[in-house]
């Protein structure tokens, strides 16, 4: 058992630090700090994307032959940790973390040659078409149809909760190509261009005031046969690969720890009812310390998974655990943060982005202004990507054998 940094690791850390010092501008950092959700707006996200692309790091987690870096888990961890400490934006996770790895694994050489470079360059921005109005946790019951006519799939139905579909030029969809007894069997994975007459995007505003998610309507929309990933009926297998990839090898904890530390610093300047400051409040300090311990444990849970992957032991359903722990923890941090700000934590501006010049003036500082929106936005984390209840079903069945 060891946790040692090699000379090469330390050199790499220096490289990452000096890169961040050079390239991560105040504008980008402010963009992250003043965005309630985890997805930054494209003006911030794409600018950072370009910088990472020029550096050659944008797709570092992909297989080497498709533009990955082949880093050790320790290097990946160092990068994520330094990015977290510096408060760097997270580049579009749907493009880089979801569809990219799917195409590396299941795409045809033509699909790989066409799409992967455009994901890396940021030319394409992807949305994920999974949930439907009647298919949430029971994803396999989805009903959006795709009928193959003359080398084209004709799509009818709708997808919902599609993050940033208003910015996307491509969407990957799980569609039903066959109504079969086993509902998982007739599902197919298609890539669909957004810029066409048969597709309409309708915004859904969250209770936090954010426009992140949408409903996307498909009315005889089309995509060519060559945009099918895998075979007809293989969609469920690909969907499961994507979800495990989404949850596997995560590095949630470093950002969580940075967030907890910032909460501690903020408490130094917030008055308590008795005239002292909140950093002297015993109850606050103990709540904060408990959150920190949970985050420190999560960091090692993630490192254990990384080490397993590096030793050729696939992560599997344990990744449901990190998602479960992380999402609960992040909500508890957001709750404590919002409560810390007292009355100032009740402001809820609907203007976006909050870092714009004409955004409303913050009462009690920028962090107070964004804290309630962040708390409300964060309620989604135990619902998206498989709700807590679904994750627990997965762990109960596949790990505990119940």
């Amino acid at each position, binding site marked *: *058992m*060891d*946790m*040692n940094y090699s000379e090469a690791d330390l050199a790499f850390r220096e490289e990452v630090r000096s890169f961040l010092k050079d390239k991560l501008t105040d504008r980008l950092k402010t963009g992250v700090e003043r965005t309630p959700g985890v997805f930054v707006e494209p003006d911030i996200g794409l600018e950072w994307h370009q910088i990472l692309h020029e550096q050659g790091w944008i797709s570092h987690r992909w297989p080497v032959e498709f533009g990955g870096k082949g880093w*050790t*888990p*320790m290097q990946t*961890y160092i990068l994520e940790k330094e990015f977290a400490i510096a408060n760097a934006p997270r580049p579009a996770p749907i493009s880089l973390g979801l569809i990219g790895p799917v195409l590396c694994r299941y795409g045809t050489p033509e699909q790989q040659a066409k799409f992967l470079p455009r994901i890396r360059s940021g030319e394409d921005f992807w949305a994920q078409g999974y949930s439907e109005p009647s298919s949430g946790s029971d994803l396999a019951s989805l009903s959006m149809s795709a009928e193959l006519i003359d080398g084209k799939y004709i799509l009818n139905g709708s997808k919902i909760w599609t993050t940033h579909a208003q910015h996307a030029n491509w969407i990957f969809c799980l569609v039903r190509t066959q109504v079969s007894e086993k509902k998982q069997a007739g599902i197919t994975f298609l890539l669909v261009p957004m810029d066409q007459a048969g597709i309409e995007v309708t915004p859904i505003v969250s209770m936090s005031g954010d426009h992140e998610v949408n409903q996307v309507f498909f009315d005889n929309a089309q995509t060519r046969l060559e945009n099918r990933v895998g075979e007809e009926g293989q969609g469920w297998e690909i969907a499961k690969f994507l979800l495990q990839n989404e949850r596997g090898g995560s590095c949630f904890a470093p950002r969580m720890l940075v967030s907890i530390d910032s909460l*501690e610093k903020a408490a130094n300047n917030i008055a308590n009812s008795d005239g002292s400051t909140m950093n002297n409040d015993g109850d606050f*300090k*103990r709540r*904060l*310390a*408990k959150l*920190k*311990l*949970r985050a*420190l*444990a*999560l*960091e*090692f*849970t993630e*490192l*254990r998974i*990384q*080490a397993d992957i*590096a*030793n050729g032991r696939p992560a599997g359903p*344990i990744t449901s*655990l990190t998602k*479960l*722990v992380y999402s609960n923890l992040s909500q508890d941090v957001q709750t404590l943060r919002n409560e810390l700000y007292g009355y100032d934590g009740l402001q809820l501006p609907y203007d976006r982005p909050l870092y714009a010049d004409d955004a409303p003036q913050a009462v009690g500082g920028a962090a107070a202004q964004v804290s309630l929106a962040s708390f409300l936005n964060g309620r989604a984390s135990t619902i998206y990507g498989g709700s807590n*209840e679904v994750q*627990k*079903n997965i*762990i*109960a069945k596949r*790990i*505990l*054998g*119940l």
Partner: protein
Amino acid sequence: MNFDLSETQKLFHSTVERFTRDVDVAAREKIRSTEHAYDTNRWSELAELGLLAIVANEDQGGLGGSLIDMSTIAEGLGSNNALDPWLENGALPIRLLSKANKTDILDSLIDGTKIAALAFAEPNSRYNLFPNEMLATAGHGAETVVLNGEKRFVMGGALADYLLVTASDNGVFGIYCIPSDSQGLETHRYQLSDGSLATVVSLNQTEVPASSKLAITFEQFKEVVAETCVLCSAEMLGLSQLLLNDTVSYVKEREQFGVSIGSFQSIQHGLVDCFSELEQMRSMLYRTLLLEKDTTADWSANVLGAKSFIADGANFIARNAVQYHGAMGITDEVTIGHAMKRILILSRMFGDAQDNLNNYLEVA
């Protein structure tokens, strides 16, 4: 980065596993009902297996084991709910004497012929480690010291040949290693939650050689306490794994309403919560074992934070294990109750979760 056990650690783990697996609830009850609530033949065997020698340095006749090695043993003992007081009467006193380089007594502890117990807790000090009520004063001769005061919660006190008594000499900390049959020493035995026999120790004008005082500072003592807290955490992790395993097996077998109760979603989700705690506890233990020791004070505070976290998790799992066993869970016949009762001791040894958390606040 690597979280696998070394070959030697795996060997120690399987040694402990073999040594402890055959003591079922009935065997345990039998041993607990003997005079000292323990079978000292087991202690000799434990010594022969090298499980005591590993705690002391090599130049002291020990094996010079690392904290990771010792943690492997503690976890192994926990995972079979062992009744052997390796932690409180083996690792803890041997570590203290090793730190003080008290070789004349160490030999007999390492070979298992003698057993020592630490007398640190006082009636009016709750979890404070600094002795206030046990006082050391100059004896009649220049070479003697007189001890007066009372200690409680002397774990394994009934077994002990030696007592390591913490005392204050005009505000100066000291640990005095004295025979348990010293003059003026009275003991009252009482049963702890794991069935072991602790003692209340009263010292009344007990005069001992000045050389009984160990060469150890309060800071060094606290470091050994912190190391012991790591081992408490490891044993609690082992016990929690046992509790979860037994409970998962039980809900698979137990049928009600014509189906196994493990098919009910409320029970499945409750056990997933336990599993989630367990994995987080394991991560916390690994983190602690790999923590760099920049300063001893910071390291100790981090250890106590970890113990607080692991103690909360272990108690959570224990209570749920009892719940999911239904009425069987509250009987003295199933292992889980005994595991829960051992966790209660470990989680409160050297401070409970709340007290340990307060210590952690200094570095959090």
